[in-house]
């Protein structure tokens, strides 16, 4: 299998995603520059975190029109696995590959800290190795991670079990206090109806090395690799 990490101008978690895939899991991984137009041959496409185009206008608004995005959309429409982390999630919503939008954190502050996430559904390629209700400790780092959508969209997300991760406390309770940014229904990550596109604000790539405080992010990569039938060599 092969993974692609897309580099937009202003991406800054590209190397971290590359590191997690290539070093922690031994997945052959390439950087793909945003001016490229093809993603053929890649089984997994990652839109990394950062500040694409400085996050000017709206986060992800300009990156969405990068040349590579046509190929990203085609990849998703063909059923390929696509994951957007943080700024990548914002790009996915701007590109309408995922519903809703991400707006300023309730506190108006950027927040960087470890947070607990509860797994809400496992019948998808991204959390297949976890249990519903499992609590993951994964860092967040964003200023605009406040997920919002109209009531109909939210209802549909719930009905289809497209909400994959919610902010919770250490015991797995979904509480107001556990919500770092004001996100609707404590949403931290969602997938599309076809369940092959996943967007999340937390950074699983920052939780793959015990020296960084948590390895709970690994289950997400492991699930993807299992789905793709990849056996780690590293």
């Amino acid at each position, binding site marked *: 299998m092969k993974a692609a990490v897309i580099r937009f101008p202003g991406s800054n978690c590209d190397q971290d995603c590359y590191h997690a895939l290539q070093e922690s899991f031994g997945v052959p991984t390439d950087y793909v520059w945003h001016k490229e137009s093809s993603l053929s041959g890649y089984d997994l496409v990652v839109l990394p975190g950062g500040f694409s185009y400085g996050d000017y206008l709206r986060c992800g608004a300009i990156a969405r029109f990068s040349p590579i995005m046509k190929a990203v959309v085609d990849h998703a429409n063909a059923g390929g696995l696509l994951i957007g982390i943080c700024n990548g999630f914002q790009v996915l919503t701007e590109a309408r590959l995922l519903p809703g939008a991400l707006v300023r954190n309730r506190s108006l502050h950027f927040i960087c800290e470890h947070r607990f996430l509860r797994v809400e559904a496992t019948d998808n390629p991204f959390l297949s190795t976890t249990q519903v209700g499992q609590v993951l400790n994964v860092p967040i780092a964003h200023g605009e991670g406040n997920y919002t959508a*109209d009531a109909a969209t939210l209802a549909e997300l719930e009905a289809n079990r497209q909400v994959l991760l919610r902010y919770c406390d250490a015991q797995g309770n979904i509480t107001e206090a556990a919500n770092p940014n004001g996100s609707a229904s404590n949403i931290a990550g969602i997938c599309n109806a076809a369940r092959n596109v996943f967007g999340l604000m937390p950074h699983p790539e920052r939780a793959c090395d015990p020296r960084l405080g948590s390895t709970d992010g690994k289950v997400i990569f492991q699930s993807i690799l299992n789905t793709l039938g990849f056996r780690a060599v590293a």
Partner: protein
Amino acid sequence: MKARVKVMPKKSVLDPQGVAVRDAVAQHGLPQVSSVRIGKFMEIEVGESGPEAEAKLHEICRDLLSNPVIEDYELEILA
């Protein structure tokens, strides 16, 4: 062609910045403030003009300058 674009958060959408500013306005001597909504204002100058360019500009407003999921835009063509 010169144009002005106003982009405002939809009424139904949460505007965290508006809420924070409303509270600050209340603290600052206008306690009866009931609402503040914050959007963007853009001034654009382009060499192109004519109906085709205007149509293009509308398209740009819809696709790039605003996000219809959360925002509405108003485009005013000046000259």
